[in-house]
């Protein structure tokens, strides 16, 4: 049953991604609405399954990194919905929903062996750690998409012959603001993710700095956040510089994740 529902969600996200791309080309409102309906349906179902699992089998859920990827896709969609609700950026779906789909698709593949969890106390810490870290990652994904859109729009405007992308994408200022807000929200999440992670490591392995599967991408992401935040706050970075740094940083984090797990 879980398997079937999971594939339904996966299919809904895939279809929504394709529809968002179609909307980009055809610009018909009904396509946009249909894509959102699919996304909303998939997200609702996923929320239900995740909370049901959380309730029924806390132990396995937090123990499997594979499920954490399912959670990641959920967190990305949640971040997307929040951003669309706040900023009404229609083009965002074409960029971020495919990433959520990929995250969900990878969740179907067991990535690692379950972690041993002898004490109930530790589950809570690990659960907290994973959820916070994932919300941080979701904000990072949002920043990445805003960055990619910024780079495309910037190139359109600089070329002085703006084409279809120019009309489709929002303004540079709005994208920069989205990036800044996601940074401000994501940084505390990720920081707490690291803190709770090391507390959990202390409980489990007896050391705060235990080197495990997810810690390298997490630390890299944290450093990137810190760099961007510092750049924005003290050096007055904005616009193209931040966009480039965000896209680059995200790709490095992604690469480190794959190098680490595969």
């Amino acid at each position: 049953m879980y398997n079937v529902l999971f594939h339904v969600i996966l299919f809904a996200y895939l279809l929504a991604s394709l529809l968002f791309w179609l909307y980009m080309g055809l610009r018909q409102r009904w396509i946009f609405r249909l894509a959102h309906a699919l996304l909303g349906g998939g997200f609702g179902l996923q929320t239900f399954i995740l909370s049901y699992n959380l309730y029924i089998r806390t132990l396995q859920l937090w123990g499997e990194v594979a499920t954490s990827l399912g959670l990641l896709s959920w967190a990305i969609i949640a971040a997307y919905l929040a951003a669309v609700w706040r900023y009404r950026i229609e083009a965002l779906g074409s960029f971020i929903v495919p990433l959520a789909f990929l995250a969900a698709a990878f969740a179907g593949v067991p990535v690692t062996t379950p972690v041993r969890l002898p004490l109930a106390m530790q589950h809570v810490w690990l659960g907290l750690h994973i959820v916070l870290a994932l919300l941080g990652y979701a904000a990072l994904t949002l920043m990445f998409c805003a960055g990619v859109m910024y780079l495309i729009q910037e190139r359109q405007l600089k070329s002085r012959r703006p084409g279809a992308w120019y009309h489709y994408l929002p303004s540079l200022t709005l994208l920069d603001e989205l990036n800044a807000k996601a940074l401000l929200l994501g940084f505390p999440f990720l920081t707490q993710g690291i803190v709770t992670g090391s507390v959990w490591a202390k409980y489990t392995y007896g050391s705060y700095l235990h080197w495990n599967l997810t810690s390298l991408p997490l630390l890299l992401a944290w450093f990137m956040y810190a760099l961007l935040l510092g750049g924005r706050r003290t050096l007055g970075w904005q616009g193209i510089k931040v966009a480039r740094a965000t896209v680059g940083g995200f790709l490095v984090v992604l690469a480190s994740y794959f190098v680490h797990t595969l």
Partner: protein
Amino acid sequence: MAIVVVGLNHTTAPVAVRERLAFSDATLAQALAHFHPPEVQELVILSTCNRVEMYVQTRDVDASVASCVACMAACHAVPAPQFTSHLYQLSDLEAVRHLFRVAASLDSLVLGEPQILGQVKAAYLAAKAAGRTGSILAQLFERALSVAKTIRTETGISDHAVSVSYAAVELAKKIFESFQQRTVMVLGAGVTAELAARHLVNQGIAGMFIANRTSERAVHLAQALQAKAIPWEAFPEHLTYTDIVISSTSAPHPIVDPVMVREAMRARRSRPMFFIDIAVPRDVDPAVNTLENVFLYDIDDLQNVVQENRRERQREALAAEELVWREVRQFEQWLAVRDAVPTIVALRQHAEAIRLQELDKALHKFGPLDERQRRVLEALTCGIVNKLLHAPTVSLKRASQEGQVRDAVHMVRHLFNLDA
């Protein structure tokens, strides 16, 4: 019954003819009040600077066209032969489609321009207030307005700017999102710069500087736009506080160079800047565009954008035409059902009258009957009438759904002699 439109527009008549036939508010009211030929049941007059059209609902197409022409001639004291060659005349679904296209701005000089919708609405309301619209033209115009709104929201036909100054505002919006906290500087006090500046003022900018070599012109323009005039020499330092620069001086060489802008960008911590250079020869060194977070458009770039936007609107017009066709077919259906219902009612009334008449005769011949026998006779006659009329009623309804109601209505009216 037919819907007819008689008129002329920018494609069929030169402005010399259009201006003589345009209805002013006064002549329009007069025409609506006094133009009452017997063959014209309903009337709406649409008069804009690009078109003069009379929409009528009539039983006699040719006679009503002739009287419309006579009305145009009489209202403006222009002899009919001087403009009849420019007139077009469309009837029924062609007329419906024409109005839908006009309202949706598919027939306009500038494709997708927004004013026409308001003009169609005003024409309709004026006719309605004068009591000249009945159920058909009222429905036609209500639908035309709703089609036009649908097309405006569902397609991108009026999305992109098709004039240079609006294109500049649109570009600025793609950089800054809103103008609320943006400051504009105008270099040179020419007419083109003023026009672009005025658009930006209407968008609600936070402030504006104006610099000109002759300061009287700058002060004068600053007063007109509620801006602040600054001395010409001070403009480089004001770049720091400026987000959008509109430049249109007659200087022979660039007056804004990359060094100047780089300096300003450093002071403003790389916040984006947008240069709109509408001067020929150009005022802003093209190399400025290579700086980070700085965007420069000259007059040719803006014209390219406008051209691309025109093409975009033309592409969107294809989708709009499709929507128009769909709505025309729906209106046709409405007309058909509307045609069928009175015929069905008339047919029923006709049969009921015959039934009552014959029943009366029979009752007279029978002499006194008891209640039960009377009821049997009633039921018998009702049954015969209902069964006989069932088939034609059903076929009329079916014909109206299939869009062939006109022939069916005609046939039924003829066979049962309903129009006598």
